[in-house]
């Protein structure tokens, strides 16, 4: 059968296409005057952030067009203490979401459902996320799902309302950008170090307004959890979409996922998925090669994800910033972070450790942290938590005894949720406290009013918890 753009109104183009363009073209229902397209949306993942969209639908007396295209679960607001009941405020969010879903006939994974977790962990884990699909979620880290070859992007609540009502979205095609990543990765250096280093090089608006495709030897070395970490943080460089062409690593991951196609459907799907790659000769608007060489573990020092250096480096001097605007931003960041230029990263002490979030809460992340923690204990002045990304991740980790390793070392072991990634009603880093965090944003006040966030990999966060300051985890292995 044809796997080209047979379902679009446009003629099949003979020229080589990017992966992005292939998915885009096959989802165009209609094209408006200025290139804006009415795009079909396959699936949406929703959480508490969808509540305003349901309120909007109700106010306009509109129905959800295709309830089966949506899967819902609470993740952002839920408290993650095991055995502690949810607060009234949390229940207000959770119950409203659950009621909204029941009214619309949308599948809702309840708080006690072991499949529940952070939407960006659950989608790929369940096989809801698949190559070639257009997916949305009212969360910026929806770019994650591009790791499996989906065209996935975050939307606002009003846009989600549009998707729920029409199963479409209006978008203009954007310029393309390929990041060819060269270098060698060896544990404990991880995908998180790769993406922090990349954002450090291209900047927090280095991919703004672009459809980004990751490619190259580094990608070939990454498993799906690592690729998810990469695409997850592509939004921190401003990318509208991030994609990685699906390959055998992807198909092996999906083959055992509960919601993947089965039998003859799988065979047809896989044959199609294998066509989802950028054609030889396709031209990107921007084509950038970054050689990461022998990458060292990365640590962010400032209040934007591009303010990052290697563990063996020092806090930079604003006088060395590339321009006056950056210099001003660096000064503000150093002031907020209470750091002085020239301070060795290994001289920065931490108060808190957070291992979790849609960036780094998969089983492989927890294993990497546990490898560092095993047989050690956290520093006296540090409090540390581990928050698995889903109920199934938690269960698998416990089956391997990872929870025991963390608990014996002095970490708290939690139930799934977004937790301390942002200052939600339950989980905050205290004012002026410094947190080694595996999350994705080190913005001012992100983890709580006055909180100081340093972004690192799970292994580096674990090492910082044990040493009480940042250390090169390679020296602890």
């Amino acid at each position, binding site marked *: 059968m044809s796997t080209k753009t047979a379902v679009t109104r446009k003629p099949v183009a003979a020229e080589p296409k990017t992966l992005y363009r292939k998915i885009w073209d096959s989802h165009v229902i209609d094209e408006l005057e200025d290139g804006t397209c*009415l795009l*079909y949306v396959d699936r949406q993942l929703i959480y508490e952030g969808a509540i305003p969209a349901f309120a909007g639908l109700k106010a306009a007396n509109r129905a959800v067009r295709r309830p089966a295209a949506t*899967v819902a679960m609470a993740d952002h607001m839920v408290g993650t203490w095991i055995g502690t009941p949810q607060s009234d405020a949390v229940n207000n969010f959770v119950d409203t979401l659950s009621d909204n879903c029941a009214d619309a006939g949308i599948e809702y994974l309840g708080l006690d459902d072991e499949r529940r977790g952070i939407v960006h962990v659950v989608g790929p884990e369940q096989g809801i996320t698949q190559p070639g699909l257009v997916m949305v979620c009212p969360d910026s880290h929806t770019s994650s799902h591009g790791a499996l070859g989906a065209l996935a992007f*975050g939307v606002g609540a009003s846009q989600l309302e549009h998707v729920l009502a029409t199963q479409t979205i209006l978008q203009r095609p954007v310029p393309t950008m390929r990041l060819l990543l060269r270098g060698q990765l060896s544990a404990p250096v991880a995908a998180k170090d790769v993406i922090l280093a990349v954002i450090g090089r291209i900047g927090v608006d280095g991919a703004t307004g672009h459809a980004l495709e990751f490619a190259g030897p580094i990608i070939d070395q990454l498993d799906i959890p690592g690729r998810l970490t990469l695409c997850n943080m592509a939004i921190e460089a401003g990318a509208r979409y991030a994609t990685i062409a699906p390959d055998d690593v992807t198909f092996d991951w999906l083959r055992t996922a509960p919601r993947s196609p089965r039998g003859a459907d799988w065979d047809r799907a896989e044959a199609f998925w294998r066509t989802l790659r950028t054609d030889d000769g396709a031209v990107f608007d921007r084509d950038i090669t970054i050689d990461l060489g022998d990458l060292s573990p990365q640590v962010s020092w400032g209040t934007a994800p591009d303010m990052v250096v290697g563990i063996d480096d020092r806090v930079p001097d604003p006088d060395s910033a590339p321009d006056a605007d950056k210099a001003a931003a660096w000064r503000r960041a150093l002031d907020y972070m209470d750091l002085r230029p020239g301070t060795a990263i290994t001289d920065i002490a931490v108060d808190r450790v957070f291992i979790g979030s849609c960036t780094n809460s998969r089983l492989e992340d927890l294993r990497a942290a546990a490898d560092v923690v095993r047989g050690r204990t956290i520093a006296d002045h540090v409090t540390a938590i581990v928050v698995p990304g889903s109920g199934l991740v938690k269960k698998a980790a416990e089956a391997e005894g990872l929870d025991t390793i963390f608990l014996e070392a002095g970490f708290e072991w939690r139930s799934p949720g977004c937790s301390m990634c942002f200052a939600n009603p339950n989980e905050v880093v205290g004012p002026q406290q410094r947190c080694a965090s595996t999350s994705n944003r080190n913005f001012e*006040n992100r983890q709580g009013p006055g909180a100081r966030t340093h972004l690192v990999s799970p292994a580096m966060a674990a090492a910082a918890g044990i040493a009480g300051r940042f250390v090169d985890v390679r020296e602890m292995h």
Partner: protein
Amino acid sequence: MQPFITLTAIAAPLPWGDVNTDDIFPAAALKKSGSGTAMMTDRKAMGANAFRQHRFHPDGTPNPDFPLNQSPYDRSQILVTGRNFGCGSSREMAVWALVGIGLRCIIAPSFADIFYSNCVTNGLLPVTLPDDQVSLVMSVITGQPGTELVVDLDTQTVTCPGKGQFEFTIGSYHRHLLRHGLDEIGATLQRVEAIDNYEARYFEERPWALPTTR
């Protein structure tokens, strides 16, 4: 949604780059309200949270150093700011909060994608001008507080007294939505037949793409 045609208003300077949506609408704001879901859905109540951790000290008193707290900038309907405005979280509350303090237009060298879309959806006009023009406008409104800019969506121009008129571009679809204050969902629902036809063909060709609840 209020149509945007032309606006003559005071502009406030916020000379920072990479202002993120946590800056604009801190998530911690959600816990301050009695009912969290009301905080997410009551768009009219969001203004109090705009730039909260910059506008107010931890004890709740206004921070006099923040431009939007200073007269005459506290009457601004236009914000002039740095590149990559609105990066970070997709939270639409950020736009509702800005609308809630009376802003109708933001001028910057660049915007984050999701934020830009959220602006258009809510009738807040995002104007992209080159760095040097934004700097020029910024210097005028900083040097002569209370200067009124004229933003015209039909001619796609920003007029800055003494400095001339600057043209900006915006997609014609977005301009149409803003110009008429359109309900985008209502417009799309007019195309329901095209969506039905597409959907039928799509799943006939890709039966495996049908969602399952396994």
